[in-house]
């Protein structure tokens, strides 16, 4: 993984706990933003972004709204397989304020996969980070014969076999 040149951008809402920073540490080449658009000052310094991960905390309606607002600033070409949603807090189904139907709707509208993760446990953090890494490898074009678009079509639930 040392020669992976792509970057993953994690878009999160501020009050998500510090475990998120740990997720970012596992993914050593990631940047975290709290919302889009990114500030234009760093444009020339910014490397190419290969994967955008939107983090949604299911306990907070605000995080969903934040993500929805940020989605508007994403260039359309990213939605060809370079965007995914990471939903945390599913283990708290008792106190979730975001309906699962809203999540599934996001998945359909933006044709992007949804991953689930509980940030509190290290094992799950590491496993999810590894999954994001695999996606990053594909989106950065490091797997011969597999493009981000192809992968995105695989992950959509309307895939036909």
């Amino acid at each position: 993984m040392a020669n992976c040149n792509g970057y993953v951008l994690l878009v999160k809402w501020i009050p998500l706990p510090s475990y998120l920073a740990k997720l970012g540490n596992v993914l050593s080449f990631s940047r975290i933003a709290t919302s889009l658009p990114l500030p234009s000052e760093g444009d020339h310094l910014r490397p190419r972004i290969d994967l955008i991960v939107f983090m949604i905390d299911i306990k907070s309606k605000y995080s969903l709204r934040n993500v929805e607002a940020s989605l508007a600033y994403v260039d359309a070409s990213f939605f060809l397989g370079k965007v995914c949603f990471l939903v945390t807090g599913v283990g708290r189904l008792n106190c979730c304020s975001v309906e699962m139907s809203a999540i599934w709707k996001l998945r359909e509208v933006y044709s992007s996969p949804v991953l689930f993760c509980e940030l509190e446990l290290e094992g799950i953090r590491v496993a999810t980070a590894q999954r994001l890494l695999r996606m990053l490898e594909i989106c950065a074009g490091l797997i011969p014969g597999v493009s981000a678009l192809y992968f995105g079509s695989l992950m959509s639930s309307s895939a036909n076999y």
Partner: protein
Amino acid sequence: MQRRQSSKTPKQPLQGHHKNQTDLSAWCKGGRTDPEKSVENHQTPNSQKNDRQQDSLEQALCYFEKLQDRVSLKKNSVLQQHLATVESIALQRGLPPEGFDVLLNVALSGKFADTVNTCLLKSLVPASVIPESSIISSVSWLCVGKCSGNIQLLFLKWLITVFDFIDHKEQIHALYGFFFSFLQDEKMCPYVCHLLYLLTRKENGESIQWCEMEYYFGMQSHLQALLSLYKLFCPELVTITLPGKMKTYFKNSEGPWKAAINAIRRRSQGNSPLSQPLFLGTAQPQSRKRKWNTQLFIPASSTNRNNLEQDSGKNHVDLYSANKSFPVEQLQTFPQLLENIHHLEFPSQMGSVLTNPLLLHYMNCIKDESVYLRLNYWMGQTLQEECTWCVADNQYEDEFKDFLETVYKTECFLQEGFSSCEEFLYKSLPLWDGFCCRSQILRLVSWIPLGNFSEMKSHLYDPLAQLFFTSSLYFKCSVLESLKELLQNWLNWHVIHLDSASDSQVCSLNTTLSGLVNVVAELIQFVGWISTVALRLENNPTFLLYFILDFYETVCDMYLRYSLPLLIMPPAGVFYPALLSMDSVSLNQLCYIMYRYRTNLVAAKENEQSKKKILQFKFSSQTYQEYNQYIIAMVGCLWTSTAFQKDIHPQGLRMDEELLKKTAMQELKTSFNIVYHPAMMGYAVLFLQQVMGWANIWGKKWNWYLEYLYTQGLKGLKLFIESSINRVSQASRSKAGNTQA
């Protein structure tokens, strides 16, 4: 008074010739340890504190007993103090049995305001058992209706939660009719339904009362649950059709009692999360029931032996009670089971069945649907409550894993899946992170019963695919293995039910052969698809290829071994990587698979031609064509070196002459065969080293080389060559070989 007496002496098991439910008796008094159990020993300083607490509890109970007039809570500090005492002791250690009578009487008699009553009811946490008499008197208060509606509801919720703590239940069963009459109250209806569900025995089904239920309209889920239970006991009397799928009928009533009971249990048994052997009672050697979870409460079987009705000679087992019923705790050996199989009394909590092999044997033999209904219901509730990624506390992950293991082992024993388990998987797989309890979940997947495609696609295939593509190599292999076992379980099910004409098994759809063929075909196509993608993503590792080819080893033999008229070739994305792989294991496996395909196809063709009648299923010519294309490629790669010229498969190896010339390979037409194949080169070199002095392999040395390969364990290769390759061309081959050198 009875109470005072028991406060001084250590707690004895209740009188009666039946044994108590669990080792709850040890909880009550600190300082007394049972040598057979590893309950934590409370130290002596604590016993003084316990005595003080016991005294204050006694005082409080005395006070409540003697209270005649209505007292307002706010003004009376004595009342408040006693309430606080009761509450604190209840939450800390639970209340002794004597306390329930007094407190229930107070709470349900309507003497006090609702706040007091609610507080009292919420403190009714049992430490050991609840005497039946207190319940009876409470029900009589309920009938009188002196307390408010909310209190009645709270009482019912409490009763449902602590149902298993009640020591005897005969009199409660006798009050069945009273409970039934409460159904009419709309607010109480769901809870009463739940209670009746727990209480119903076969005898109740025959009473005429419940016929009236059919006229209640609005088929709410709780009524459906009760009716489905009645239908099981007396199917001829229930005429309306009920939905087949088992749903969660009863909402889990949230109450403080469960948490308090769990907390007390945890505290008294220390921090051992793993199961301990549980002895029921001390006098007699009992059957060991491993409590699979120390904090989830599975009470052991309660035995109701007093005045039970005669089972009038029908040759089936009366589940709940029978004349001279044989309590399950005494069941220790298989001969005992056989002797008493008609008097067996099932435990009131079905969960304890899971770990008892004798009861599982019984479940296997006697096809009693109510058993499955109860077990499924209990399991569904437990899985939903305890699922570690769907609840707030996931500190009990180890226990949940053990529970899932137990369920899996039970499914293996019974050789069928539980519908509640299937529902749990369908609900939680879309939300699964792929890490928690991974091996247990994947093993449970292999027992999913046959279902229709659209359901399986959205609930099983899609979430699995999403996890599959993004996860590690090992996860992929685990998924493939569990899908192979799923296929085998379906095929075994088919073989077993092939001959049984009247199939009354619980199978939602696909009891027809064509339905089964469709579902199996869809699974195979799904696996073919994900295998192709996975090989691409992981760059053809041998480890992954092994699992994929293992799956196809089951697929290739479906016709002959499992009598399923279906034959599906592996996709090109699996076939060619295996054919051109760099190691001989995959090649050998592939050869074996192709050999089995050939055998199956030949057998099918023979059956077709020999039978006069038209078969329902014939393999289409497309299947034969696919097979032929693959065979041409294989023979070309292994034998005749003509793969690049003759492979006609659309995704095959065929290349134009010009392109082949550009490779500047000499002796193109003879350079790709069993000697020069990258997987076999090592063997060729070793062979030549052994027969030193030969520079090349041709003529009879070819045969010796083949013999050498067979001795190296390449059985699949042997079978393939002997069956698929026409050795008449051996002569021409050796001539071509002679031109080398």
